[in-house]
């Protein structure tokens, strides 16, 4: 009798799931049809070769919907959008923006619509496909800003011709006088990766450490990421705090002895949502096409295309991660500092950045 009841339960369960899948398939197909009628989708984001060379061609090939990619610095795109909106022009459908822009501008200025109710593509809506059990929305209402990536951030890069890995095991090893003038950083006195890292160090290690590292150690500053990467490769500044993975990885392929270090004693390792967070513009000119793009970019095909090009760990469970640097994939049971956590982005980072600027400007 028990077996019969169990069988009946399973049958009902399967048929409900099957019916739901059928319904969501139908809903998705209807959205795609409507999107095709809209003719195009306008996506705003950072000028990104992966986006232009891989993601957009694949999306257009799959759905026949052309993508207009408005590429630029976040601050410029948001300025333009704000000004356009003041005159009743709504030109953008989808934003692929960094956490600061997403939280402090797009969300704060109410430029975006809830995305969660529009997640209908079956493989995206299916919670089992996500490491977090569902699509991760970073905003307090868990509706607007989807986070698709969560990788361990590189703590620093070293050129092993000049620096042995064991020489920089602890965060305080960077204060060794041997490295005075040998560490490069993106300029921490202006907004950007350099200031974000300094803010994190201020919060995690303290003011004295920030002063010692950025002032006493004569850390060499630049605002040009290429300059930092070249210094690292040539060994003139063999320790780089803010080089970008996508800039350094080609150098490793060329045979330069550069090591990416993800963990260092004395501070927790950091995870972040780089390279972008996803949101949908309100009053979008092509709402259905925007919905299709948003669903697809969160799908296995969309995210894997991006992750392979950029080299960052996604939150999907069905993407093979063997192409990633193992250090980039978060380990189970390890407590990380989340650099894309909402409260940190909205208040913590800002407050600590201001304190860093006070320290650096007073020296």
């Amino acid at each position: 009798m028990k077996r019969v009841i169990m069988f009946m339960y399973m049958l009902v369960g399967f048929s409900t799931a099957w019916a739901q899948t059928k319904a969501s398939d139908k809903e998705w197909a209807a959205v795609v049809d409507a999107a095709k009628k809209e003719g195009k989708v306008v996506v705003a984001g950072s000028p990104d070769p992966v986006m232009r060379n891989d993601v957009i061609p694949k999306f257009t090939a799959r759905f026949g919907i052309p993508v207009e990619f408005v590429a630029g610095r976040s601050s410029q795109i948001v300025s333009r959008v704000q000004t356009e909106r003041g005159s009743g022009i709504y030109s953008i459908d989808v934003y692929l923006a960094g956490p600061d822009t997403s939280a402090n501008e797009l969300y704060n200025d109410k430029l975006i619509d809830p995305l969660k109710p529009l997640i209908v593509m079956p493989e995206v809506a299916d919670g089992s496909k996500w490491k977090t059990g569902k699509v991760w929305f970073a905003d307090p209402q868990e509706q607007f800003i989807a986070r698709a990536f969560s990788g361990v951030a590189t703590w620093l890069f070293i050129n092993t011709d000049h620096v042995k890995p064991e020489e920089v095991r602890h965060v305080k090893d960077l204060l060794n006088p041997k490295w005075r003038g040998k560490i490069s950083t993106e300029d921490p006195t202006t907004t950007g990766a350099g200031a974000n890292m300094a803010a994190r160090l201020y919060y995690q290690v303290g003011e004295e450490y920030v002063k010692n590292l950025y002032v006493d150690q004569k850390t060499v500053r630049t605002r040009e990421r290429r300059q930092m990467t070249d210094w690292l490769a040539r060994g003139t500044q063999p320790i780089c705090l803010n080089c970008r993975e996508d800039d350094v990885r080609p150098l490793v392929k060329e045979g330069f002895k550069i090591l990416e270090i993800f963990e260092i004693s004395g501070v927790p390792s950091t995870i972040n949502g780089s390279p972008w967070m996803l949101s949908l513009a309100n009053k979008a000119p092509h709402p259905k096409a925007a919905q299709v793009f948003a669903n697809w970019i969160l799908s296995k095909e969309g995210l894997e295309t991006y992750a392979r090009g950029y080299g960052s760990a996604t939150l999907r469970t069905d993407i093979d991660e063997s192409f990633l640097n193992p250090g980039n994939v978060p380990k189970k049971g390890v407590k990380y500092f989340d650099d894309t956590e909402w409260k940190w982005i909205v208040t913590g980072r800002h407050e600590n950045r201001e304190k860093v600027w006070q320290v650096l400007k007073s020296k």
Partner: protein
Amino acid sequence: MKSPSATLSLPGFRLRLRPIRMAEVGFLVFLAVVMGLPLLFLLSGSFNLAAPGKPAIYGFGNWQRAFTDPGTLSALWMSFLLSVVRLIPAMILSVMFAWLIARTDMPGGRFIESACWIAYFVPDFPLVLAWILLLDPNFGFLNSLAKSLPFVEGPIFNPYGFWGIVWVHTSTGGIWFKVMLLVPVFRRLGATLEEAARVAGANTTAMLWRITLPVLSPMILAVAVLSFIRGLQSFNTELLLGTPVGIYVYSTKIYDYLQREPRAYGEATALGSVFLFVLAILLFFYWRYLSGNKKFTVVTGQGYSTLRVKLGRWRYAALAGCLIYVAVMMLLPLSFLVIGSFMRRYGFFNIASPFTLNHWYNLLADPIFLVALKNSLIIASVTAIGGILLYSALAYLLVSRRTITAPVLESLCWVPHVLPGILLSLGVLWLFLATPLRFFLYGTVWGIAFALILADSPVTTQAFKAGLLQLGADLEESARVSGASWAYAYRRILLPLLAPIAAAVGLMNFGSALTSISTPVLLYSHQSRPLAILLLEYSFTGELERAAALGLLITLIIGSMMLIARRLGLQLSRSD
């Protein structure tokens, strides 16, 4: 002489509208709208303390924050110092170059002039990197060469620091821009005055000092003012060579505010207003100088001689000096840039098989490239022609001494030169969106060309103005007395005499339109993206080699245009 006039009849009122007055009013309204309104938008915005998109709250908070920042004054002082230190030798050198090219029998003048044109349009970012490759104390090519000398211990060159910035600026923009503007007016100088000086016993130096420079002073001063303010706004070179050693300039502070999230346009505009203030002071003295009892006329209806000063045996020494300067300041870094575009990684000669054609192939295969090229050519052509038509007429009005609003017109003309490019772009964006212009200009190539024409107003107007000041009023008057209409006299007398200046500024504006990034950055759309924005995207994503290839291609386009212009007889500056 009587000007043709139209009559406007209203009940009880008859107003005679002379064409010159109508043109004056037309220009005043046009400039007030296109130059004044964006400035007004920006200035009023700088007092708005509310967050973007929120109801306005007015106050002085943005200005207070901007000017109480501890680094602001030191950055302003550094910009001032760099600008002055660069300006003085660059002005001396460029006047010498222009004089040698245009007024003497030095051989190879046209080659030197062409080299200046090409040098000006080589993109500065990869060129600065080329100088780093040459001068870096650790790996610089010239330091490595120097180390092989027996008496040299350590590195003797270092681009990072104050003098490194001055040196590299002399190469990237330094004298090229000034020579381009000065040569046409130097060529216009007839030999009559110089011959008279010689007859009176003056030697070459005295003649240059007492005759040539004073007569050409309107353009020399205008170029100095333009260069000084441009120097204050300079940014890219300082970013690469100054930041690593803690040198920050004023424009860096403005840039910081523009990059903040949320954006701080109020603070940026407050800081930018310093440029307005500096310009106002400089213009005051410039106008006082021009409005004195001085005459700058060199072309009259009473004979004109274009004989050149004979340098004798010094002609080859002068050529050698110019060639050495061009070779060191232009060819040396340019050759590194050309090589860099063929390298797998710019400047890395020690990797396996360092050379590749991939960057050029990837550039030409980029589906956006051809569209961007077409857009850029349309934008640049419209900008060049539009600028010539508009500003030659405006300059004519300004020098005619028949306008009552000349100071206002001229001040409005200078506005684009004192606004940092991105703020000008924002102002124009507001202008488009707040007026019916948005329906046919916003997001189009025509809109970008329109903004670039506005941005070109100071240089173009001043060039035409200086050229017109050299022409005697008797040229036009004699034509009119002989029965020619104003339009006929303008077409047959003034225009041919202005053609060399028109060709020079037209080509300069064509080139600037191809390379300008900050003006179109807020105005382009997917369909109207120009090459310069593509260049920005490549640089932004670290594709420096592809950016170098694109930069060289743009330089090639400008070089080709220069040759075509010469073929068509539009001599950049010859009038003999």
